[in-house]
């Protein structure tokens, strides 16, 4: 496990392109919204820079792409994005799980039938997406930092994001890497297998593809048992990430991905732990050796285009100043007296339940 002292999340720059391409190629499973395709990734970075440069009063077509930099290695070791509005241009398609009750007075029986309905309702949310992390950092607080630094960004620029945030997790794939859900649903409408369509969706657009999918609700009993079992089930490699996001305050929704039926979790911003537990503290710089021990925390500066977020100890002076080393302050680009946003890295215990509120 690597030390996390010199890890930094910041907006992606054009110089990060090669590293992001490498990360995109190495993600497990491959991500639709992070295609290992240089032109598309270059466009993503340019779009992210444009989004940061614009004055934004309410969420729209912005995309923010971040990288995780290991300053010790001088390497980009992770990337993650936020789409300000999941369906700003096209609709963001999901399948929504519904239950129909077929009751027969004649036979005096009540029969429940599950369906999946194509839905555009998630189009308005801000979406945390396109996360890929160098495998050496898996399970470390680097993973946590990369995932949740985006919340530190959202906390500072609420006008740029929707009240509700969503995260779509890659869905379950079988041992051969195929998607049982795709094989039972999408495959009827496309010749391509899951991987091909995923690549195609990355290069073209997921909503192009969604338009070809069945428009009427699907009856679950007509799907294969394997496909039914995959609904709302995350890819094993993303289980820890899902658990963390549930601990953060996200809740499972009725919505799943249209390709692989991966779970979509969502939360109102004010219910998220990071957003409710973050606070402002002025910086007090002290020699590294003299910093007291304390719980780890995420620390972010206040600069939009020059956003920086790192992990430090949550050590405060009696008057509430945050104690940082010279090196940490430099990493964040802040001088003494400047306020930084701090949130504890630890999260409460996970509650994994379907959001009753969605009824």
């Amino acid at each position, binding site marked *: 496990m690597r030390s996390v002292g010199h890890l930094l999340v910041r907006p992606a720059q054009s110089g990060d392109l090669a590293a992001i391409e490498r990360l995109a190629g190495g993600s497990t499973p491959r991500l639709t919204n992070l295609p290992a395709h240089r032109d598309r990734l270059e466009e993503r970075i340019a779009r992210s820079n444009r989004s940061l440069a614009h004055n934004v009063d309410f969420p729209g077509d912005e995309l923010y792409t971040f990288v995780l930099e290991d300053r010790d290695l001088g390497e980009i070791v992770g990337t993650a994005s936020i789409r300000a509005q999941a369906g700003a241009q096209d609709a963001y398609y999901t399948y929504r799980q519904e239950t129909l009750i*077929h*009751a*027969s*007075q*004649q*036979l005096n*029986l009540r*029969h429940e*039938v599950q*369906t999946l309905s194509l839905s555009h309702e998630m189009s308005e949310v801000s979406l945390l997406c396109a996360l890929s992390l160098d495998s050496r950092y898996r399970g470390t607080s680097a993973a946590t930092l990369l995932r949740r630094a985006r919340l530190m960004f959202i906390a500072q620029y609420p006008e740029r994001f929707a009240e509700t945030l969503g995260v779509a997790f890659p869905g379950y794939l079988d041992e051969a890497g195929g998607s049982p859900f795709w094989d*039972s649903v999408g495959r*009827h*409408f*496309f010749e391509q297998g899951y991987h091909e369509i995923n690549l*195609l969706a990355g290069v*073209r*657009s997921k909503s*192009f*593809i969604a*338009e*070809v*999918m*069945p428009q*009427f*609700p*699907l*009856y679950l*009993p*007509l*799907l294969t048992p394997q496909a039914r079992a995959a609904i709302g089930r995350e890819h094993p490699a993303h289980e820890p990430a899902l658990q963390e996001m549930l601990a953060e305050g996200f809740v499972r929704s009725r919505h799943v991905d249209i390709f692989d039926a991966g779970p979509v979790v969502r939360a109102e911003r004010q219910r998220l732990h990071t957003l409710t537990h973050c606070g402002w503290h002025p910086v007090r710089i002290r020699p590294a050796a003299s910093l007291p021990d304390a719980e780890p925390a995420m620390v972010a500066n206040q600069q939009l285009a020059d956003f920086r977020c790192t992990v430090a100890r949550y050590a405060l002076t009696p008057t509430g100043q945050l104690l940082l080393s010279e090196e940490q302050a430099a990493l964040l680009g802040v001088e003494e007296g400047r306020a930084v946003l701090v949130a504890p890295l630890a999260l409460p215990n996970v509650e994994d339940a379907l959001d009753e509120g969605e009824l």
Partner: protein
Amino acid sequence: MRLRPIGHHDIDELQALAQETGVGFTSLPNSREFLAAKIANAVAAFEGRVPEQERLYFFVLEDEQSGELAGCCAIEAEVGRETPFYHYRVGKLAHSSVQLDLHRTIDTLFLSSDHTGDAEVASLFLRPAYRRDRNGTLLSKARWLFMAEFRECFPAKVLAEMRGVFSPDGVSPFWESLGSHFFPMEFKQADQLTGLGQKSFIGELMPKYPIYTPFLPQAARECIGQVHEHTRPALEMLKKEGLRWEGYIDIFDGGPTVEAYIDDVRAIRHSSCVTVEVSGDSLAQPERPGWMAATTGMSDFRCSWIGRGPSEDGVIALTTVEAERLGVTSGDALRVLES
């Protein structure tokens, strides 16, 4: 052998017939009460005591010598008027994208009551012992002569529902893959309830959204619009009359419903009206009859094979036996059809 409207006195024979039909012939359950009501309705229909669109004309084929019933058949004047009449309709939906250079049409089953108000020919059963001497053809085609004669009592279209595919052990692959998920019962039960006219459970339980056929297993897809092996001759006979499968299938077994505009039905177009001339019993009788004749009354409708066709000037010579069988005398009108 002659075909005639059923009468109250036929109850015992009809019940014997019902016992013989067996499973799968749901419109004749072995229930005396049900059958008596059915006869009463039919008698009222033939006597014009029921509004035209509610009439069920129920015919029997009788061996006029033994008095035994050889079979039965029916015409429903307008289906779906009192209880809903459901089919799936196989339609095509385009699934296309210019951007993806993709263009397919997907067969999709739509719930439909399109046939509401059409006539139906149904309930044909011929006892095994009588499956000879073209009795089956008489039973089937006599209905066209009836409809030709009383054309104004029928709507524009006529349909016939054909039994779908079943495995040798009586399992319907279509039902297993589709209906069973929505109707928590055995096929047989669903079928029986329908036969008894207790159909409200269908509307209550059946899927309301379209079914994309690719989601059905191949065995079920292969049943769509296909008939049971034993039904194939009946289907062929209807096809020869011009009835076609236009994509409607039974919601339980996927069997085809064939249909035609009544005015297009071959037997109706080709039948003609002639005048009877009873010529004693000296006329030759062919080995295999080629002409069918029907009388022109409704409640005393009769139809049977006759030994020959009409002359060019529209006169049909009948033997005394033939005339008696049909209940006509010289000078009466008959509708005849070569078949």
